[in-house]
């Protein structure tokens, strides 16, 4: 029997289409086998495909890359919330998702949306010659958590990096965040490389900002951090530290609306 499901594609953490980080959102009337979810995500061939299922007042949410299920995906959550709060339930003030990473709450924030994520603080570590070589330029400071956080002095240093991704993939970390101070009202710029996860460079990364925002908040003594991810597609976020959580705010734009036939 032919079954049709609504599908949306949203560019997250941007105010224009063809920028930010794209995610597909598929709305399910009942859960499908995991192999089918994975096949849909592989077909979409996007950084993330999110699957939504309303269960009473709750909304269950799962995220898949073209090859694996993700434990947490910030941009996929923002994109899913955009679909609910602007298209499917435009009167609702917020949406609560049940996910493998626990409850995630997205609220309206100005013209955009705000997403509450667990903070992930990086701590200083010894310089890594292997990391400096792979990045092609030694950072001024190095910190670590799940990811390395390599801090440069000048905003121009970050977009100029041309990393050796094969070498980065050999390092013992999930990925590498590179960051530097921004200018003109922007507090920091960053990029995120995760070749070990099969993503040489991610366009805009919510989870990386759970580390970037507390770092710059502490260093600059500011509660709110205006951040730009300076990947080729580019993205804009605002972050605020709230105890052990980081609230990330950003815009999103609908690129595609359709139906998928199963």
């Amino acid at each position, binding site marked *: 029997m032919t079954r049709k499901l609504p599908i949306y594609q949203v560019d997250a953490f941007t105010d224009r*289409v*063809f920028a930010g980080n794209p995610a597909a959102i598929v709305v399910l009337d009942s859960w499908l086998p995991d192999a089918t979810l994975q096949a849909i995500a592989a*077909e979409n061939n*996007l950084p993330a495909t999110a699957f939504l299922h309303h269960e009473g007042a709750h909304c269950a949410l799962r995220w898949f890359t073209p090859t694996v299920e993700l434990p947490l995906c910030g941009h996929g959550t923002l994109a899913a919330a955009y679909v609910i709060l602007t298209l499917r339930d435009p009167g609702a003030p917020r949406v609560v998702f049940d996910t493998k990473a626990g409850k995630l709450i997205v609220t309206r924030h100005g013209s955009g949306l705000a997403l509450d994520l667990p903070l992930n603080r990086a701590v200083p570590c010894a310089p890594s010659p292997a990391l400096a070589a792979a990045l092609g330029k030694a950072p001024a400071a190095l910190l670590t958590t799940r990811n390395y956080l390599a801090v440069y002095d000048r905003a121009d240093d970050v977009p100029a990096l041309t990393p050796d991704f094969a070498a980065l993939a050999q390092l013992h970390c999930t990925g590498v965040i590179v960051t530097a101070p921004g200018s003109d009202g922007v507090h920091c710029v960053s990029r995120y490389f995760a070749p070990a996860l099969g993503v040489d460079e991610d366009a805009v990364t919510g989870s990386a900002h759970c580390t970037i925002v507390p770092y710059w908040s502490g260093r600059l003594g500011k509660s709110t951090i205006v951040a730009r991810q300076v990947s080729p597609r580019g993205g804009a976020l605002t972050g605020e530290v709230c105890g052990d959580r980081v609230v990330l705010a950003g815009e999103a*734009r609908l690129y*595609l*609306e359709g139906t998928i*036939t199963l």
Partner: protein
Amino acid sequence: MISVGYVTVDVFTRTRFAGNPLAVIPDARGLGDAEMQRIAAEFNYSESTFVLPPDDAANSARVRIFTPTDEIPFAGHPNVGTAFVLGRQGNLFGRPVSDLMQFEERAGVVEVALVRDAGQVVGARIAAPRPLEISHVIDAETVAACASLRIEDFPPDGLLPVMASVGLPFALAEIASLEALARARPNGAAFALADQRYPHADDHFALFLFHRASEDAGRVRARMFAPLSSTPEDPATGSAAAALGARLLSLRREADLDAELVVDQGIEMGRPSTISLNLKKIAGVAQPVQVSGHCIEVMSGMLKI
């Protein structure tokens, strides 16, 4: 903001989520070159097509083909998939769709025939737009480096690796075993060097590996790598299969021939695909290779740009 209709299909398969995905914009009027390129990048499929009214009213449509990075002159699965989509929609710029269509493309006019089963459009057949052109003989070391293989993985009595085109160029290289074919991995740095050594105006260096159980086998197993065009591996490549078919046809001694060749591709990457070729010679003259395949609809809707 404008709304633009789109359809996605899996090409060279009867099974959804197998074959080669394609996005089709069945009416691309009003889109500029830069927007087409951005849409192709956003879909992130190996190709997306944009259908426009023909320049010459005798033809059916103008079809432009974009990879995520470039516009290309011709390709196989985009033609088969585009014909299927237009055949299913039944009309084209206000005219009924005919079972025989002519698509204007940068490589020339491509003849397309719909394939039906019990009246329903299930696929399409295309003729390669250009005669076989061999632009380079490729050294085996270059192929080995690109595919992360060893020289011993090439059969000693196999076909010489060449760059061949019937509309889009591919380095065609014969591999000695299915085991070696499964072991092949694209090496991006080696592709960049190969692209410098064997440049072609029509496309970046792309490698089509094939294995034949025997010289007269009616089935071939293949894989295609094009990391320089944002396609590390392609599940089904009609234009490369057609170039291989034309090359094999050129080596046949018969003056008259009408043979079928089936290319199985995409198996190693979990997207099995079946490309059917018709190889024909009449009185010693090779006819354009015909490429046919089935398609299945996956998604449809509107883009908001």
